[in-house]
């Protein structure tokens, strides 16, 4: 595939099982792809999203985007090769349906704990396009759970340019985006879900 860095094709990324099945892949795409995607995403319009659970900016559904780089990215995510790649990592069967949006978190923005469960969603993914040091917040917090209730965060994934994170959506996949605590840094990412039966 002309998207994924070769080192991630010769050997499948290691599936971490705790607190729930996930992978964290640094340098996932070819660097030029990441740069082009960042440029493409920043041409999209972001809308303020504010509710009890969250406060951030988000694009519309990018599977309908007209921008070529993003259209190509959608095609890549839907491709048989990528779907098989993810299916092999998580041992799941996917059906090529993809949801995709762009998110932008600025100072004080956050997303409170939730599990992403909605009919059809099998694997959630995030592709980071900015760097956030630990002190600036914005990390993805993964919760341990007991009796299908989240208890505490046991892992934090720091946003890093060209990092791809995926996890299996389940009754245990509780996670959050930590509040961004930076006046000038922004957490920019693609996010979405791969669907399956």
């Amino acid at each position, binding site marked *: 595939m002309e998207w994924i860095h070769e080192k991630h094709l010769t050997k499948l990324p290691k599936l971490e099982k705790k607190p729930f099945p996930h992978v964290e892949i640094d340098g996932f795409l070819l660097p030029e792809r990441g740069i082009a995607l960042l440029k493409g995403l920043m041409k999209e319009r972001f809308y303020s999203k504010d509710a009890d659970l969250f406060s951030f900016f988000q694009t519309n559904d990018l599977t309908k985007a007209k921008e070529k780089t993003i259209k190509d990215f959608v095609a890549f995510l839907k491709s048989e090769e990528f779907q098989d790649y993810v299916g092999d990592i998580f041992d799941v069967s996917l059906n090529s349906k993809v949801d995709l949006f762009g998110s932008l978190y600025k100072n*004080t923005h956050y997303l409170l704990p939730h599990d992403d469960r909605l009919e059809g969603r099998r694997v959630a993914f995030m592709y980071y396009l900015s760097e956030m040091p630990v002190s600036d917040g914005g990390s993805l917090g993964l919760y341990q759970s007991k009796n299908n209730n*989240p208890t505490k965060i046991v892992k934090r994934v720091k946003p890093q340019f060209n990092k791809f994170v995926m996890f299996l959506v389940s009754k245990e996949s509780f996670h959050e985006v930590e509040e961004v605590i930076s006046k000038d840094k922004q957490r920019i990412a693609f996010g979405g879900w791969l669907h399956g039966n």
Partner: protein
Amino acid sequence: MHLEGGSMVIRNNYIQSVEKVRKSFVKNKRFPSVTLFDFFDEKEFKGFFKEIGKVKFVHERDVMRHSWSKSQVPKKILNALNSPEVLEFVSTVAGRKISCIGASLYKFKHKDYTILHDRDGDRDEIEILIDFTPNWCGDYGGDVFYVDGKENYSEVPSGANTMTIVHKKKGTQRFVKYVNHLSKGKEKIVLFGKVLL
């Protein structure tokens, strides 16, 4: 009507204009409610605030529902809420006979919140909110919102010595917005009361 000792709890201007307050309450058909600024007599309110300073708050977190510090309402405040003066005032505004107000006291600091959940919104009820917080800024979060089943939102105005009376119809839920890092150690102090009809 007066408390023991002859002091008025509610500012006289509200007592005198209770019918006008009732009209404001019913005007908003989607969220019948009214917010009364500087509601309590100044001396009484200072006394309430002093009592709050003496009680112990215990922090609780149920990740998918809330993070807050909670306390029993000091006797002086509970007695004032259940005084004939306040009960009659609230009864007139709400348009129904109210026999008792039960309440709890909450503090919300950085990282505290409540999230909407299914069990809230089961009943048709009258709610009382009293804000005890001096110098709170909306930029900190912590604001109280009501939302109906059609995603219509109503924000409760905040400010120390503010009393809000709400007809929380069946299907309407309430949440407290996440308190962000701009709050810098400040705490929102709010009493939530439910009226027994």
